[in-house]
């Protein structure tokens, strides 16, 4: 990709974000002149840069938006929710185009038609904003639709076309144009303002507004009418049944799937069940990664090799069986992970890095010198002292370097918070509720990986607050609350931790109901539930298998409860805490480490393999006589300091064979996970190391029980275990 395009993508993304936040602010305070100017400038600059990279379609779409904003600025049109909606929709489209451009640096091919429909929508809202009273924007459509009944089922599109008033002079005949309109079935004629009195009619000025119903698709009509004027409205009358039409599968994914098919086709009986299971797991992961859940489930449900092979072949054969796009497609679209591809870094931090690199170079030269001395047979003791000294300097330098690099990786929470204003707006509208989003502490910084992984759990919590917490306006008024609910997103730094609160002023959690539902759904034993404090009982909403939604809504629900939130936050090394004030609202506090990258590990050996355990979870290590471990039901347990602690054989739990016969003493690592103690029996304890833990990504992201991987000094890959999942 050339440098121009890269710069364009970077700038365009920033401008899109700027314009989005301006528009959302404008919606709250339509008189804010500064925000209006800023939004206008952002659109204007975006349009300009689109022109520079020869992306005409994008420039055209943005030009239409800019025109409307210019009219608003000049006081010729009011700022309306519909207008902001259109402008935001335009920005969404721009963001999609940018994503597509990121792939190969070329403007996307199908952009023209999309740009047409954006231009047409703005033209409609321009007509809508015209000074003429009675802006019955859909009156023409309603009239036409009455006629459409005779053609029911065939009519796909309604168009309204306002020819330019001087079109007769240019030799154009709108009547001829419309007679050639593809699929024309019904025509309606209107005038743009009164044509009477006859005496003052200029026969050469076109004042017609022509609307029509057609059996042809909207895109075709837009393309047909485009050369004939700029005021064209195209409305599709049928639900778009065919999803987003993008059935393409990344080449890597296809290759992987084909490899699994090859694996399944092997006839060798030796180890066949294992092969089939592995192929199934890989294929399912591929689909999960591609967010094609239905396909993944189909794979997971396949029972034998033939079944599995058929399922994979059917799916890669074509996208025909894909699940239909959900109704809330626009919200879903925005909800996909959005990683910052570019970081803006303070120059001082870069200077600091340059200095460190300088010191490293000096040390490298010193090491080279020491190596030369060793070759020339220098005194071993003196050499060892030199090397030890240099190792100490290297340790200090790497620590400083790590610190600096981590400092570069920080992102403000704004990055994730800002996406919510838009989503809350849409979700509240969809749920028929009135909700205001307040964000605080957006400038709070945290590691890029944390900030980026926060979006999904936060989205879940916000959805939950909107669906279950926030009451309808009349209920709120009856309770003496303001009709508009407030959802607050708050970021704070506390020592080495970053706190993020999601707070609503809704009805709070009905603890009695939670207890009842939890008992019904067998989340915990009834006795255990009744013994819980209210606080503990409210916390049950995070328990796996619990969901208090009596109806599955579009936004939350879908079988994934708040337990998904707790799991993903835990994966980031954080905790979730809930404060419930019945009748007043709920606050969910997420506590996260400032950085996920540096982790202190204890290396243990089990079944002949080395594994890493996060040091923060390790309470103590003990060596006990094997006979102190007693069977307890199906498990084993040991009494340590008057507490009964379950014992898990790590090798067994990980499916490894025991390497050595059991010795007389057992080595146990006692760990605490969420307040619960557990003991892992291991073969040997190793050293403790600081590592940059690399979270599993891509196809391995869903692997249970594994927190990440790191490289050891001797080049081996160390698997770091997720203790919470292991002990569950």
């Amino acid at each position: 990709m050339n440098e121009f395009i890269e710069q364009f993508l970077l700038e365009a993304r920033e401008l899109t974000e700027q314009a989005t936040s301006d528009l959302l602010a404008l919606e709250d305070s339509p008189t804010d002149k500064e925000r209006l100017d800023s939004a206008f400038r952002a659109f204007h600059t975006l349009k300009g840069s689109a022109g520079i990279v020869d992306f005409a379609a994008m420039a055209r779409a943005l030009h239409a938006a800019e025109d409307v904003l210019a009219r608003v600025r000049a006081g010729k049109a009011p700022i309306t929710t519909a207008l902001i909606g259109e402008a935001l929709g335009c920005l969404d489209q721009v963001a999609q185009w940018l994503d597509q451009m990121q792939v190969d640096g070329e403007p996307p091919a199908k952009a023209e038609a999309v740009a047409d429909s954006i231009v047409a929508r703005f033209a409609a809202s321009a007509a809508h904003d015209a000074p003429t009273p009675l802006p019955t924007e859909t009156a023409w459509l309603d009239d036409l639709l009455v006629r459409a009944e005779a053609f029911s089922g065939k009519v796909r599109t309604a168009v309204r076309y306002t020819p330019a008033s001087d079109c007769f002079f240019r030799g154009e005949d709108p009547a001829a144009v419309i007679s050639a309109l593809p699929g024309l079935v019904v025509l309606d004629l209107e005038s743009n303002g009164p044509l009477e009195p006859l005496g003052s009619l200029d026969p050469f000025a076109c004042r017609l507004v022509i609307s029509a119903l057609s059996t042809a698709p909207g895109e075709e009509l837009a393309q047909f009418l485009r050369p004939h004027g700029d005021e064209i409205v195209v409305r599709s009358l049928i639900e778009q049944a065919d999803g987003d039409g993008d059935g393409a599968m990344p080449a890597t994914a296809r290759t992987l799937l084909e490899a699994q098919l090859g694996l399944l086709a092997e006839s060798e009986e030796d180890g066949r069940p294992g092969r089939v299971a592995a192929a199934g797991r890989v294929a399912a992961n591929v689909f999960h990664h591609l967010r094609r859940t239905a396909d993944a489930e189909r794979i997971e449900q396949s029972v034998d090799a033939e079944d599995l092979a058929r399922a994979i072949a059917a799916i890669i054969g074509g996208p025909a069986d894909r699940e239909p796009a959900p109704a809330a497609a626009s919200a879903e679209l925005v909800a996909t992970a959005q990683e910052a591809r570019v970081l803006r870094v303070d120059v001082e931090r870069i200077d600091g890095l340059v200095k460190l690199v300088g010191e490293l170079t000096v040390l490298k030269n010193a090491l080279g010198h020491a190596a030369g001395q060793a070759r020339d047979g220098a005194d071993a003791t003196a050499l060892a002292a030199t090397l030890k000294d240099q190792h100490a300097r290297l340790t200090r330098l790497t620590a400083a370097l790590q610190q600096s690099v981590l400092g570069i990786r920080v992102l403000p929470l704004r990055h994730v918070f800002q996406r919510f204003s838009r989503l809350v707006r849409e979700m509240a509208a969809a749920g028929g509720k009135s909700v205001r989003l307040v964000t605080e502490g957006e400038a709070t910084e945290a590691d890029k990986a944390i900030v980026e992984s926060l979006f999904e759990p936060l989205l879940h919590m916000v959805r939950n607050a909107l669906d279950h917490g926030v009451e309808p306006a009349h209920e709120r008024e009856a309770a003496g609350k303001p009709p508009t609910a407030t959802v607050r997103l708050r970021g704070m730094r506390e020592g080495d931790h970053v706190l993020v609160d999601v707070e609503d002023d809704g009805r709070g959690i009905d603890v009695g109901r939670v207890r009842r539902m939890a008992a019904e759904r067998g989340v915990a034993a009834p006795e255990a539930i009744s013994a819980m404090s209210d606080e503990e009982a409210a916390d049950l909403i995070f328990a796996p298998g619990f969901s208090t939604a009596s109806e599955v809504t579009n936004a939350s629900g879908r079988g994934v409860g708040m337990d998904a939130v707790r799991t993903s936050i835990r994966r980031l090394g954080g905790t979730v805490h809930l404060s419930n004030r019945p009748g007043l609202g709920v606050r969910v506090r997420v506590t996260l480490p400032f950085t996920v990258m540096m982790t202190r590990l204890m290396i243990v050996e089990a079944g002949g393999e080395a594994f890493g355990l996060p040091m923060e979870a390790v309470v103590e290590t003990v060596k006990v006589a094997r006979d102190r471990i007693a069977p307890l039901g199906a498990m084993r347990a040991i009494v340590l300091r008057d507490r009964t602690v379950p014992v898990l054989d790590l090798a067994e739990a990980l499916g490894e064979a025991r390497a050595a016969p059991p010795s007389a003493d057992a080595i146990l690592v006692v760990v605490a996970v969420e307040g619960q103690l557990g003991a892992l029996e291991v073969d040997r304890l190793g050293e403790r190391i600081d590592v940059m833990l690399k979270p599993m990504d891509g196809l391995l992201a869903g692997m249970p029980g594994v927190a990440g991987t790191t490289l050891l000094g001797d080049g081996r890959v160390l698997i770091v275990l997720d203790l919470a999942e292991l002990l569950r």
Partner: protein
Amino acid sequence: MSVHLTEDGRIALEGDSGLDDAEPLLLLISANSGASVDWRDCTGAHAAILQILMASRAPLIGPPQNVYLSDVVEPALRRYNERGFPRAV
């Protein structure tokens, strides 16, 4: 390609009525208020012609020979006349 006043006081549109016929048509309609427009022999009508027919709300004698004019345009003109007043758009 012709617009003229008939002996019995109709305004006849014949053939393909183009932009050139707009002004004569407007003059004829203005001068003969209440006259019907007979477009049975019309085979095509420019948008400017339609606009004058709309503005004058002259009674139409039809249907024209051309299928597009008779099945699509004439119903639209009639609906416009029946509405009696221009709708704000």
